[in-house]
């Protein structure tokens, strides 16, 4: 195969020299050495890019198609020959080159034209570029000058009915149909392909933009040459050289596009070095860069859980439909390790994905362990939240039980004793009366103590009226002026309860230890956090790690994913603050 390609390359180079000479020798003053050389240059660009692509990606048809287009473009120049056989043969196939160019572009990057409309356009293109020139040859008798030809007539060996006007008319019909209708459809299909592509796919399809420009320039050039009697030399020149530039760049861009996966594979070595100093959370970005897919996601298989998780340890579901997202599973010794969820266009480059997966195996394994740890930490965190919830629920239950049980019985007892006092009336024994009165007072004190206990366990007003009302009640019982600035909004019960206990413990500490003259409680929502802050102007010197009260509060706030801060410089007052996640 290598010899074949080498042979074709040498044949193409030789043919280019021949094509150049034929054009110079036969068109005389109607061409120039620069133009002849430029056309050969375009053909060689297709030929060499095609052969190189064929060599690098033998299974992809784009390479052979580009090479064929290059040969066809060279053979096209041989039609200028005055030799009847050469003229007839090469004129008949002269336009086939553009059908091959269109076919190469539409087959890019997979090598296959799978879309029905694109397939139809390719077929019609081949048919039109063969049928029209052959039909012209059936009528061409030399009486009219052919497009792009010098005045001396050529001889068609397949002339059937000499009619120069018919030949010219068919030429015009050819330009209208191929360079008007088919070229427009071609550009429209390219645009559709680009619009439908994913972001990564669009980058791969970038050469199609160049193809669209090249074909559009050629179409205008053909139109002017066919339908304008005396086109401006300057316009003609500009169009000629611009289209030459576009047609030289096109095969090179297609070749570069096909080689992209190879180049990316070459960077896999760099990836190894990069991953050595990449933390697990940077793995995705590194792989996304090498694979050229910013949408890439990595999910990790956790055998103990029997599911995929993301980098944060959250359960991840793999997409089933490969239209929008595709999945490549990474395994080691047949055991699943991770899966890449990526742009479907990467399915065309399985070797690249496999190479990246293999190079990043250790880093992926490391990130998997990291994700596993995050998952377990997540479970611990969830369990801490559940513990806080359960404890709060239990506190509410105890408060309710106290209220509905012992408190009601004591209250009823007090009322019954009061009834007894009344019923004894004026005849009552003063000693018994004093005893009853004292018992009622005792009962009332017992009720008050129970209330105090219930408040400490869980104040009912917190559940019923919210944090602001509960703190108002709390501060009304505090033997210290406390200014309150608390948001009135209702928040999740665990957030309200945690904020309340922060304030409660803070005030209790102030009263017990701070020797403060004033205190302030502020509570507000900020960036998805609910912040509760208790501040005093007392002695300071409080230590969060010394004593179970503040430590317990810190545990409680942190259990909800929040942050607890104590600032208490000696003689500088104390500020305790809890930041509790509360949603947006």
């Amino acid at each position: 195969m290598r010899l074949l390609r080498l042979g074709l390359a040498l044949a193409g180079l030789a043919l280019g020299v021949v094509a150049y000479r034929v054009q110079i020798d036969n068109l005389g003053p109607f061409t120039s050495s620069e133009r002849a050389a430029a056309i050969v240059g375009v053909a060689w660009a297709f030929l060499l890019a095609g052969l190189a692509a064929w060599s690098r990606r033998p299974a992809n048809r784009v390479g052979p198609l580009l090479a064929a287009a290059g040969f066809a473009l060279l053979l096209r120049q041989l039609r200028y020959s005055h030799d009847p056989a050469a003229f007839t043969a090469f004129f008949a196939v002269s336009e086939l080159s553009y059908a091959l160019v269109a076919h190469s572009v539409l087959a890019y990057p997979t090598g296959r034209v799978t879309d029905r409309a694109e397939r139809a356009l390719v077929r019609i293109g081949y048919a039109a570029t063969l049928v029209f020139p052959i039909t012209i040859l059936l009528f061409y008798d030399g009486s009219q000058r052919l497009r792009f030809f010098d005045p001396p007539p050529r001889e068609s060996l397949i002339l059937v009915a000499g009619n120069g006007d018919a030949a010219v008319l068919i030429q015009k019909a050819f330009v209208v149909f191929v360079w008007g209708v088919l070229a427009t459809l071609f550009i429209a299909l390219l645009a559709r392909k680009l619009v439908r592509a994913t972001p990564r796919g669009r980058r791969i399809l970038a050469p199609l933009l160049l193809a669209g420009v090249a074909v559009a320039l050629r179409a205008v050039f053909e139109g002017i040459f066919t339908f304008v009697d005396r086109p401006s030399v300057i316009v003609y020149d500009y169009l000629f050289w611009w289209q030459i530039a576009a047609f030289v760049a096109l095969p090179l861009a297609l070749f570069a596009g096909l080689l992209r996966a190879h180049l990316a594979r070459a960077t896999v070595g760099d990836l190894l070095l990069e991953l050595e100093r990449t933390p697990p959370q940077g793995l995705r970005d590194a792989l996304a860069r090498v694979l050229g897919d910013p949408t890439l996601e990595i999910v990790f298989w956790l055998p103990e859980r029997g599911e995929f998780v993301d980098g944060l340890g959250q359960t991840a579901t793999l997409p089933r439909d490969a239209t929008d997202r595709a999945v490549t599973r990474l395994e080691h010794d047949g055991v699943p390790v991770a899966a890449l969820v990526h742009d479907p266009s990467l399915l065309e480059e399985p070797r690249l994905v496999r190479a990246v997966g293999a190079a990043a195996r250790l880093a992926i394994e490391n990130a998997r362990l990291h994700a596993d740890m995050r998952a377990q930490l997540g479970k611990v965190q969830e369990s801490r939240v559940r513990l806080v919830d359960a404890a709060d629920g239990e506190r509410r239950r105890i408060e309710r039980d106290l209220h509905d049980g012992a408190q009601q019985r004591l209250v009823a007892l007090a009322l019954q004793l009061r009834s007894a006092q009344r019923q004894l009336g004026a005849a009552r024994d003063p000693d018994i009366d004093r005893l009853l009165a004292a018992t009622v007072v005792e009962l009332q004190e017992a009720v008050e103590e129970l209330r105090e206990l219930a408040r400490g366990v869980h104040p009912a007003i917190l559940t019923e009226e919210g944090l602001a009302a509960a703190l108002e009640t709390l501060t009304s019982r505090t033997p210290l002026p406390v200014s309150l600035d608390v948001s009135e909004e209702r928040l999740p019960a665990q957030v309200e309860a945690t904020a309340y206990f922060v304030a409660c413990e803070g005030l209790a500490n102030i009263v017990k230890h701070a020797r403060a003259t004033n205190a302030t409680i502020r509570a507000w929502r900020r960036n998805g956090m609910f912040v509760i802050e208790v501040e005093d102007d007392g002695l300071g010197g409080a230590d969060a790690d010394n004593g179970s009260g503040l430590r317990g509060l810190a545990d409680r706030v942190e259990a909800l994913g929040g942050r607890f801060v104590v600032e208490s410089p000696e003689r500088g007052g104390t500020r305790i603050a809890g930041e509790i996640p509360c949603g947006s």
Partner: protein
Amino acid sequence: MCDDLRVALTVLVIDDHPIFRASVGRLLEVDGFRVVGEAANGQSGLRLARELEPDLVLLDVGLPDVSGFEVAERLVGTRTRVVLISSRAQRDLGRRVHETGAIGFISKDQLSGEAILDLIARAA
């Protein structure tokens, strides 16, 4: 004056604790009130209040179906005066205790005919 009022006053007790209803009923009867009905929840309390049109409703703040505050608000505009009661202290109930149209609040352990009449006299 107090004695005259006491004779005229009919009372409906709305509270979900049977033991309390029984005790307070006895105390109020002893203190000269006439307990015309009892209800264990807000809905039946409201219905009885409309049917019986008592002079006074002793209304527990914490009822199982609707809040006592809401029941009090729905009785505003009727001839019935509402006294809110709870085994919790007034300061544990927040501002709403003052915003319902009730003539006042008595902690359950402090309940007595005198306490009620005192509230009525202050509201008059």
